[in-house]
């Protein structure tokens, strides 16, 4: 069964099609890379999958659940997690609290309005896994960009998602930070299917098994790494010929 199955998805903004009849099938455990130039519709595709945007037509399945019209938080409870292109965290709160909010999202305790809120035991361990344990009590606004990026991924992983969407996880990072994040992504267990967007083809090529090239809201090329790199259409999109 496919972990994520998208059928002829369409979304237009004011008559301008951003996603134009996209179909996509990501198998369980797969590492899929979606690339394409600016404005190709990559982030829009993610927003449709997470429910931040509603599609005009088409269907989206997460394993055997149709999620096309489900609210965002319901999709999360079915095993979907994401990170944002522009880091979206709780800047005034500590790193530990950020992880706690992530764990709380799937916990029944989130409706508990009379008990005391304590940081969960697991939070420390989750931070340790991404090498941020020593910063647990620091507010997010005080840590470096690369650390924020790792925290955001840790928050998504804390929920043990079945499908994880990473929106340009390497963007804006220095070479060293990039290495750390790449290592982190490579260490994600196979129970989690990973779909990753990258703008720059070369940075992320080695992390994917299958690659989808998106251009003007359409799938131009799809296949294994070697197939996509060899395809002249890929070069056309990137070199503009």
């Amino acid at each position: 069964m496919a972990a994520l199955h998208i059928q002829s998805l369409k979304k237009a903004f004011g008559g301008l099609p951003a996603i134009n009849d996209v179909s996509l099938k990501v198998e369980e455990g797969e590492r899929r890379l979606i690339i394409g130039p600016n404005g190709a519709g990559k982030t829009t595709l993610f927003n449709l999958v997470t429910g931040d945007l509603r599609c005009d037509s088409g269907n989206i399945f997460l394993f055997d659940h149709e999620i096309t019209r489900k609210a965002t938080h319901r999709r999360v409870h079915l095993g979907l997690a994401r990170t944002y292109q522009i880091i979206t965290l709780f800047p005034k709160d500590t790193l530990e609290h950020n992880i706690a909010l992530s764990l709380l999202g799937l916990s029944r305790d989130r409706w508990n309005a009379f008990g005391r809120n304590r940081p969960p035991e697991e939070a420390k361990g989750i931070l340790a896994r991404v090498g941020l344990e020593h910063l647990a009590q620091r507010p997010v606004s005080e840590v470096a960009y690369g650390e924020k990026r790792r925290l955001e991924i840790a928050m998504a992983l804390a929920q043990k998602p079945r499908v994880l969407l990473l929106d340009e996880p390497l963007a804006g990072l220095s070479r060293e930070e990039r290495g750390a994040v790449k290592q982190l992504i490579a260490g994600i267990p196979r129970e989690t299917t990973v779909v990753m967007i990258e703008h720059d083809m070369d940075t992320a090529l080695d992390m994917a098994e299958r690659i989808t090239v998106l251009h003007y809201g359409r799938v131009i090329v799809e296949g294994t790494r070697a197939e996509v790199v060899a395809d002249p259409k890929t070069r056309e999109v990137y070199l503009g010929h």
Partner: protein
Amino acid sequence: MKHKSWLLLLILLVLLPLGYGEYYVNLASQILIFAVFASSINLLLGYGGLPTLGHAAYLGVAAYLSALVALKLGMGHLAAAPAALIGTTLMAAAFGLIALRATGLGFLMLTLALSQVLWGTALRWVSMTDGDNGLRGLARPAPFGINLDGATAFYYFCLVITVIAIAFMARFVASPFGAALKGTRDQSRRMSALGHDVWMIRWLTFIYAGFWGAVSGLLFVYYHKYIHPVSLSLANSAEGLLAVIAGGSGTLAGPLVGAAIVMLLKNYVSGYVERWNMLLGFVFVVIVVFMPEGVVPGVQRLWRRFISRA
């Protein structure tokens, strides 16, 4: 340290009637009632990031319901108080469905519109509310046979209810639900992406704030033994909002301090200065200029700076 200052405040409040006369005790009662009202606004504004300009609706409706059950149905407080609380809370649930179609300025306008409907109704439905004359001839309850007609007895009654109310609201914001509420204030989109039902969190908070607004309304009508449409007015909602902002929104002590500032200006200073509203505006401007985050966080900040220099 934090617990100690709350305990100290409580002891001072308990001892207050020993040192001051009836006038000041009554003033203190009014501050407590207004503090409960402001704290319930703070749940929405300070912790939920939802600016309400219609919270007088809950204070006023609870007061009117309690008065009407007593006057029109001839029932005692044992029936009137639960009827007022339940009725007002249900109304908050219904109003929340409408107001939470929006956030920010849209939410503000919707809450204002809803409360203005009630204000207009109270003013015009003369056969029921006696319009601009207000409803008079009300009595204070006598819980466990204790007569509350005296200023001191009523003050202690207010103090008990206020302590319970603040304790419940403090627990609420310190709970896991409260953490989620603050999350929706800071990053609502991220909260949905973490599996939190942002709308439901806001709606439940709206209802909870409505309930505590209703509690303040009961105390209000018990204190005055009279209710007038002005309690439902925009001015009353705005004063509550002002108290929260002046004291420090998103802090527990802020609305208490804000309520004290507004009530002292309104009741005490107005005896000496005719245009007390102007003075309130002036005080508010001074607070916003020097402590834009409110008096409580502002004083804490200045105190820390003073300590680090010394």
